[in-house]
């Protein structure tokens, strides 16, 4: 089983799970969300962050060298900041109280600094004095100094009182709950080494700072302070950083104007809202649009917050500006998955159970979603390889956000969707009642009493059964049936009507759910520029990746560059180039010069690395707490004097090697990626390189696997070329076969019997039959001789041999009366959809008047044939088929709009041999299996009727009937010689392709075999009931292939055992038997995925051509057992005016080279003729004008190619045209 199938199966079960226990899952998800949101409580949001700041490192400290680019240096600094950094080594043997030991020194150091005096200068008169921190809560206010020097240390957490510190039972908690902890510790939290979850097995380094804010810079004072602090009993001043090396840095906080600061943000957020608006409005056909839209937005936002929470659980606090990165993260994560899931679930068949709908919809898109998730994650994790910490952090958050978003989509949004769809369902109680009533009706029918009452109600259950999709419920609980009286019958009829009314009155409920598929269809068919989900785009991107090996090359390139960077080459070069005062190069030099120093016992956190974060986030907010603003001011940062304390590890011996490796283990792993220079020696570099190579190779492999599994990289090879030059115009004289006064509607051609060999075959043996809109049929042979012509209306009145239904047939009406080509364009498909869209409303009014009957043909489905007031029956021909079993007698089988099946013999007289009524609805499709003389007819509501043709006895024997689908069929064909005999393939509005074995289809046990012969009133209804009874049985011998996400519009069988199907979702699937011959399963493979509905698929021996709704043609070629998309071309340059101008004909004559494979369509340039296309070369070969001696405005439509006669059959108005093929190309 392929990965793809496994994934979609997983999604299927997941969908079922979500739809079954929505409440529990929602509760669980919300708990998880809250759990991951919890760390956000401790997230300190600096007041106005971050400040843009400018760094200046003056050469001398006098401030005299004020450069013209730094006008702000004229003024004195707002404050001068000095830090005393203390590093405490905590060995792994130390107890939990290591933190206490480590922090104990801060009290001493704090007191020392506070009381320090040098000469006559003391800190109290040099320091930066502050008032009370009014912007804080009282508890927090106590931790900051008030009315005095601004001197910060961890001791401030306990108000510098050692007793309070000693009596504090839970230091860690006190530290963690304080929002000021980073300000007080004087460094970003990840550098302090204090972690909540203490991993005992490692040595740790805890660091903190005592931060003193001075009024102005007094070098002498600072030096003496630094030296004095080194004389503390526990402190050991690290020799690498002498006080002289404390180079002051001016940090200027920009005072940006309002416009400059907020306009980009404003624009960004408006763009974000536009994006959300345009995305969310694509959610359609659900009960509550607003609810789902809110759910989608919540999914994205909650997932981002969760990602922050997850990162904080792992000790990574976000340092980026949240308000700026948030829109980008939202846009990057996107809402496409949500929309795709919604669309997929909504477009599943309505009659399925809710959980199955959700499951099927999920499983259809599951693979796509997973694939795009994997691709996005691996692409974004490339960002981790970039050398910039901001980009790395962004990529990290995006990756985590993608994962949490996926989680929320799968568990939160799908559950919401399931709930929403469940709300759209009819009430289960109503369903149950309907089922019970239906059962009563059935029993009543069997009793056959009180016919009038029965007639008034029997139409209703049938339609309700269709509407509610509860056919199977009819079969249930037959056991406890009791004969019902007439009284209960009328009662139940009353109840049914009420129920029906209730369903119609209920707001949006039935219409929404039932028309979803139609809406979908019409939307996609009509609006060619309608927005569609972006998933195809992503997949295409992936395909393109696969075809170009772009990802592989890109990854290799990135790897090379990164290795170069890791080896320090680039940074060395850049250091050479830009050794000016850019901060970054300075940083890298200090970073690389620091660690190697010999005297270090413990590596202290590099203050050069962390102070920009303090300057950006914490110091401005600290000043903000005292109601001061640093905007437009600058502070001078003197640096940090580093001390090491041995206080905490007196008990344990210091292993030097472990100590030096501490900081690497301390920092998160991705941090190493950004600063390869921070690693010591070759081993660290080698480890990192190894890791990088493994990572890149793994991600490449995963990506390649994805692309290979899609296997559709060829999609991008279609770049069609323009065909602007008009091709040559030819004039061809066709053979004209004049039909009748009305336009030709249907044409069918006798197939060649397999026994026919070309030598003995004569042209006269091929028969053409054409029906016109007024119901007359003409039959020709190919030499142009008309064999027969009969007007069916006349025949019905006179010489019908065995009319088995007693319905009186009136004169022509319907199409005949409408006349004048008003309905010329009414194709079969329109009829079907028309019929089904009308039937529910028609069913409500059993006493439909005559006007309605003549107005619309499909209203026949609402007619009761036995009703004495409605004897008029407009029986247009909706389908027909020629039967040429032997050459002597020729038969024509005709399916009519009133559900009659007629058998005509046209050898000599042209008379109707037999006429039976199969159903109350019109027959839309008819196929005949010539060898066994079995015909299958499909009705407008998806019923299949199987009959045997007894030609000798001039009879039609109905064999069986079953429901193929609750929705109308769009296509039906016989797939010859498929595995175990012939298969019947149907495709319909319910998005499904069904395969029936014809042999078993005929054998369905039917309760009323001779329903045509009993001649009873209400035969149609009885047939419908019987069919409903057989519906459950139908599932056993029918194989359902669920490939499309929209109605399947076209089917075509091709010689090497397979069926191509085209759907309204723009996909063309190849359905072929599964590889293992034992099972009866089918394998489906998507060949094409376009944005346009595929209206037609036609197949020749090696080629298939699909016609799209926008007039595009796609040519597929069969090479080595697989279909490949060869080319596509635009049939019409403009958007098509008529929605339907599909491909009508294809051929691949043996005399032509494969490059000359051509197709013929009706002319696109307004010419009364044909266009011949060479699809391999993507252009028109020629235009053909048909020279006839009469002028008609009707377009010439090619019907099919008679390959052995080398003739192209076209229809044009009331005539058939035969065009010699050799004149076309």
């Amino acid at each position: 089983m392929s990965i793809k199938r496994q994934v979609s199966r997983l999604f299927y079960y997941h969908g079922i799970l979500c739809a079954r226990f929505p409440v529990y899952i929602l509760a669980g998800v919300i708990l998880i969300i809250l759990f991951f949101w919890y760390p956000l409580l401790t997230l300190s949001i600096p007041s106005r962050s971050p400040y843009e700041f400018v760094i200046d490192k003056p050469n001398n400290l006098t401030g005299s060298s004020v450069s013209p680019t730094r006008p702000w240096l004229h003024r004195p600094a707002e404050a001068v900041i000095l830090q005393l950094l203390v590093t405490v080594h905590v060995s792994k043997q130390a107890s939990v109280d290591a933190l206490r030991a480590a922090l104990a020194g801060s009290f001493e150091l704090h007191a020392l600094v506070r009381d320090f005096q040098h000469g006559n200068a003391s800190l109290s008169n040099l320091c930066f004095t502050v008032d009370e921190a009014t912007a804080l809560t009282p508890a927090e206010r106590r931790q900051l100094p008030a009315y005095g020097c601004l001197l910060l240390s961890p001791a401030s957490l306990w108000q510098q009182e050692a007793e309070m510190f000693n009596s504090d039972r839970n230091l860690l908690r006190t530290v963690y709950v304080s929002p000021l902890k980073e300000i007080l510790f004087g460094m970003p939290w990840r550098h302090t080494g204090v972690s909540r979850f203490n991993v005992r097995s490692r040595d740790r380094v805890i660091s903190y700072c005592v931060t003193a804010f001075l009024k102005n810079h007094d070098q002498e004072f600072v030096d003496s302070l630094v030296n004095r602090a080194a004389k503390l009993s526990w402190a050991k001043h690290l020799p690498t950083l002498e006080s002289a090396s404390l180079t002051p840095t001016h940090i200027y906080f920009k005072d940006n104007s309002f416009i400059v600061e907020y306009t980009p943000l404003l624009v960004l957020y408006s763009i974000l809202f536009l994006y959300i608006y345009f995305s969310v409005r694509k959610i359609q056909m659900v009960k509550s649009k607003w609810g789902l839209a809110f759910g989608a937005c919540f999914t994205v936002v909650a997932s981002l917050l969760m990602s922050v929470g997850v990162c904080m659980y792992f000790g990574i606090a976000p340092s980026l500006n949240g308000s700026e990165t948030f829109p980008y993260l939202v846009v990057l994560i996107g809402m496409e998955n949500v929309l795709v899931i919604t669309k997929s679930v909504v477009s599943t068949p309505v009659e399925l159970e809710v959980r199955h709908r959700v499951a099927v919809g999920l499983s259809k898109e599951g693979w796509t979603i997973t694939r795009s998730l994997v691709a996005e994650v691996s692409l974004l994790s490339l960002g981790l390889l970039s050398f910039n910490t901001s980009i790395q952090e962004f990529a990290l958050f995006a990756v985590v956000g993608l994962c949490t978003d996926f989680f929320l989509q799968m568990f939160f949004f799908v559950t919401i969707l399931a709930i929403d769809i469940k709300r759209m369902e009819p009430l289960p109680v109503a369903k149950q009642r309907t089922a019970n009533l239906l059962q009563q009706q059935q029993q009543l029918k069997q009793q056959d009493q009180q016919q009038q009452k029965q007639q008034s109600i029997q139409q209703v259950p049938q339609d309700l059964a269709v509407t509610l999709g509860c056919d199977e419920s009819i079969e249930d609980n037959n056991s406890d049936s009791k004969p019902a009286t007439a009284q209960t019958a009328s009662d139940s009829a009353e109840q049914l009507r009420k129920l029906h009314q209730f369903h119609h009155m209920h707001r949006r409920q039935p219409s929404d759910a039932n028309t979803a598929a139609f809406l979908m269809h019409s939307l996609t068919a009509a609006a060619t520029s309608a927005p569609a989900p972006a998933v195809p785009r992503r997949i295409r991107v992936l395909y393109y990746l696969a075809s170009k090996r772009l990802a592989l090359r890109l990854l290799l390139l990135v790897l090379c560059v990164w290795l170069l960077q890791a080896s320090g080459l680039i940074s060395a070069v850049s250091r050479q180039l830009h050794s000016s005062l850019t901060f970054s190069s300075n940083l890298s030099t200090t970073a690389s010069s620091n660690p190697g120093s010999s005297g270090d016992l413990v590596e202290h956190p590099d203050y050069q690395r962390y102070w920009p974060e303090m300057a950006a986030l914490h110091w401005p907010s600290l000043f903000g707490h005292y109601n001061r603003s640093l905007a437009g001011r600058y502070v001078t940062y003197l640096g940090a004097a580093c001390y090491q304390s041995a206080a905490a590890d007196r008990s344990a011996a210091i292993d030097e090697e472990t100590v030096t490796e501490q900081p690497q283990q301390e920092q998160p792993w991705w941090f190493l990626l950004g600063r390869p220079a921070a690693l010591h020696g070759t081993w660290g570099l080698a480890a990192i390189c190894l890791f990088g190579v493994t990572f890149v190779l793994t991600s490449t492999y995963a990506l390649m696997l994805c692309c290979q599994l899609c296997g559709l990289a060829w999609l991008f090879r279609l770049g069609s070329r323009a065909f602007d030059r008009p091709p040559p115009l030819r004039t061809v004289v066709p053979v004209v076969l004049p039909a009748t006064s009305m336009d030709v509607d249907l044409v069918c051609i006798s197939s060649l019997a397999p026994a026919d060999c070309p030598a003995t075959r004569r042209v006269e043996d091929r028969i053409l039959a054409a029906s016109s809109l007024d119901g007359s049929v003409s039959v020709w042979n190919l030499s142009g001789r008309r064999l027969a012509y009969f007007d069916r209306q006349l025949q019905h009145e006179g010489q019908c041999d065995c009319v088995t239904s007693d319905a009186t047939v009136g004169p022509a009406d319907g199409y005949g009366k409408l006349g004048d080509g008003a309905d010329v364009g009414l194709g079969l498909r329109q009829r079907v959809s028309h019929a089904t869209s009308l039937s529910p409303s028609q069913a409500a009014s059993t006493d439909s008047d005559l006007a309605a009957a003549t107005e619309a043909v499909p209203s026949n489905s609402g007619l009761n044939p036995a009703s004495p007031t409605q004897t008029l029956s407009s029986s247009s021909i909706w389908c027909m088929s020629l039967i040429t079993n032997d050459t002597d007698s020729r038969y024509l089988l005709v399916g009519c709009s009133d559900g009659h099946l007629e058998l005509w013999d046209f050898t000599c007289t042209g008379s109707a041999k037999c006429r039976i009524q199969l159903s109350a609805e019109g027959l839309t499709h008819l196929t005949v299996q010539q060898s066994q003389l079995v015909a299958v007819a499909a009705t407008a509501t998806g019923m299949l009727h199987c009959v045997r043709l007894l030609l000798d006895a001039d009879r039609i024997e109905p064999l069986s009937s079953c429901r193929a689908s609750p929705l109308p069929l769009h296509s039906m064909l016989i797939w010859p010689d498929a595995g175990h005999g012939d298969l019947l393939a149907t495709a319909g509005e319910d998005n499904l392709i069904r395969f029936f074995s014809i042999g078993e289809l005929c054998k369905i046990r039917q309760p009323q075999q001779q329903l045509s012969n009993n001649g009873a009133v209400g035969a149609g209804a009885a047939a419908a009931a019987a069919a409903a009874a057989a519906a459950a049985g139908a599932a056993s011998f029918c194989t359902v292939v669920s490939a499309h996400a929209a109605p399947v519009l076209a089917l075509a069988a091709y010689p090497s055992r397979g069926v191509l199907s085209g759907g309204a979702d723009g996909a063309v699937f190849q359905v072929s038997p599964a590889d293992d011959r034992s099972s009866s399963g089918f394998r489906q493979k998507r060949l094409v995925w376009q944005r346009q509905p595929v209206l037609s698929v036609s197949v020749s021996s090696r080629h298939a051509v699909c016609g799209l709704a926008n007039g595009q043609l796609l040519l597929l070629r069969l090479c080595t057992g697989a279909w490949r998309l060869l080319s596509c071309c635009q049939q019409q340059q403009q958007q098509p005016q008529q929605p339907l101008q599909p491909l009508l004909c294809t051929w691949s004559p043996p005399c032509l080279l494969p490059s000359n494979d051509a197709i013929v369509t009706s002319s696109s340039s307004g010419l009364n003729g044909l266009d011949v296309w060479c699809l391999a070369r993507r252009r028109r070969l020629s235009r053909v004008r048909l020279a006839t001696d009469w002028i008609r405005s009707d377009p010439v439509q090619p019907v099919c190619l008679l390959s052995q006669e080398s003739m192209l059959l076209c229809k044009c108005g009331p005539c058939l045209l035969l065009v010699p093929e050799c004149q076309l190309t």
Partner: protein
Amino acid sequence: CALISCWIFFASFIKIIDMAVHVALRVAMLFLFGVGVSLLINLMQAQKNQVLITSEMWLGMVKSGMWVPPACGLSAVAIGLLYPTVDRLLGDPTVAQRTDWSSVIRCAALFVGLNQAAAKIDFMSHAQLSLCLAAMSLGLWFYFDGSRSGLGLALVIALLAAAVNQMMICLDAYRPSVDFVRVRAWLPCIFFSGSVTVGLAGRLLAAQANSATSSSAAKSHGD
């Protein structure tokens, strides 16, 4: 006969007017888009500037660079009209069909993000900056456009614009206030991704105008 010819003339006139209105709308939208984007980038780069930007200086900058936004607008119009034309010439109308407004907006947002990244993030070196920007803008094309014609067009436009910029600096037409290497590093990438974004919008506008005219034509035909 005269009535019919008059009617035909009237219908064609209406059609022409209709098309003209659509084209004018497209042009106006593209122009506004270009102007807005140029102003936005100016703002972002102004944030990056080492100099403090007071309000007078801001006004002065706009005054001195008054020609920039209209030029950007005009080039946006040109690019937005060029993309569908090239598509039509190359016969690949599928890109516009795959596009919708939400993806255009996504692309625009990421384009703004690109600018912001270029303006705000401190890169170690100019090489790194341009490398990152190039990768990001290629990714932008890859994710949203994906067509070869789009890639070629964007490349050509980026190179052309960078060359024009270089020439103007050489001719001393204007002096970049920011340090020059940086400008040279990010400018082609910004042009590239900008042309991808504008091209996407132009394609979608063209497709919508097409469908609008055809539907209106169908309506008039039906009447």
